[in-house]
């Protein structure tokens, strides 16, 4: 449970349990769930963005060179990107 910040006291519990920091779930890094990671072969990548659109985590984005790369802080290693990459540019590699 990285970055878990429970309120210390009941007084610090937000009124109604509301959360006022949209998207702060990103403080929690799901990368630790992964046992395999996607590796991109840029020579095969056609920059179509299919991996980006199919990623359930929304953790793939375009880098400066236009390649779609996975943010390994969040990638859970599901392998959808590798399976759906029709030019075969992504392969899943065991962690560790």
């Amino acid at each position, binding site marked *: 449970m990285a970055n878990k910040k*429970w*309120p210390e*006291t*009941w*007084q*610090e*519990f937000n*009124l*109604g*349990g*509301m*959360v*006022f920091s*949209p998207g702060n779930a990103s403080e929690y890094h799901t990368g630790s769930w992964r046992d395999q990671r996607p590796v991109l072969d840029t020579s095969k990548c056609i920059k179509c963005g299919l991996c980006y659109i199919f990623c359930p985590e929304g953790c793939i984005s375009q880098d400066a060179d236009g390649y779609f790369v996975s943010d390994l802080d969040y990638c859970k290693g599901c392998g959808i990107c590798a399976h759906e990459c029709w030019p075969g540019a992504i392969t899943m590699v065991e962690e560790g």
Partner: protein
Amino acid sequence: MTKRVGMEIAFAAAEAVALCKPDVVAAYPITPNTHIPEHLSDIVADGRIDAEFICVESEHSALSACCGASATGARAFTATSSQGLLFMGEVMPIVSAMRLPVVMAIGNRALSGPINIWNDHSDIMSQRDMGWISIFASNGQEVVDMVIQAFKIAEHREVLLPLNVNLDGFQLTHVVEPILFPDQEEVDRFLPEYEPYATLHPDKVLSMGTLGMPEIFNEAMKAKDVALINSKRVIMEVWEEWEKLFGRKYEPIQGYKTEGADVLLLTMGSMDETAEVAIDELRERKVSAGLLRLKLWRPFPIEELRNAVKSIKVLAVMDRAVSCGGAAGPVCAEIKAALYGEPNPPAIVNYVIGLGGRDVTVDDFITIAEKAAQAEKEKPKEAYEIYGVRGS
């Protein structure tokens, strides 16, 4: 300018809601509260208030819709009875946990079965621990006053809790009687526009109704409990202001002829004033009896109760619901808990009375007071008695 009108109390409740200019009303028909939303829908249909009236398909959806509307910052109202309140039950503790100031009128009615459309308090007693402020009216005037007060209390920045006003089904909902109405300017001055703490809107994104893990659940419940306990201060403030403006006094527990009384009856709702007549008769017969009318059920007025029974010998508690298999009726159990360990507590006797619309008369209260007076000397055999039940 106050206006004196003869009106059915359910209609009067609707008129009181209209004076508070609700934004959203969502309700589902169930006897005996139905005249409240019916009359409100008339008021909306005639354009007297600008509100969305949602004819939901169930009570569950009525409270759910009020919850959603309140979360957007709308002033929301609903009403129900009996099984309808049970059906809302799933949403009841969530509305209070989300700190949404929904106001509800409950035309109190027995729970089935056998199915019964008449008055008792088993519906609200089943929902007593849901984190709502819960107030009981004894007559039409109190219904109107309490409905208007309700929005001010619930929406107060230091409260932000849902509130239910309880009016006995039929015994109150269906009775035409004289009621004093404040006018719109007076209500506008008393009740400011609702300024929500936070709302569902893309201009300020937030999440409501999040998941509470065991690590924070104690804290979440403590926060809600403290909010409910602390709401009493605001309730008292609002009642004091009301008295100044309109001359009618409200207290968590209102005493009637308690001076020097050995025996006090404790009642709620439409029983209150009938019991007062009994006290008048008893006093004429030189029986030193008095009455406590419990108006504020949640938060429970522990201190006020302790003070009210300090010098009496017997307290006879009327419960209009059975806590089947329990140690006492729900009200009496609360009272015993509040008085346990107090120095020289009175003997406490408990009568379950007026179930499912069974009539409660002046003579009944006289009989009960006389029986209760014996309790000081001889403890009753049963922890509570279902008064007037046939069969030995």
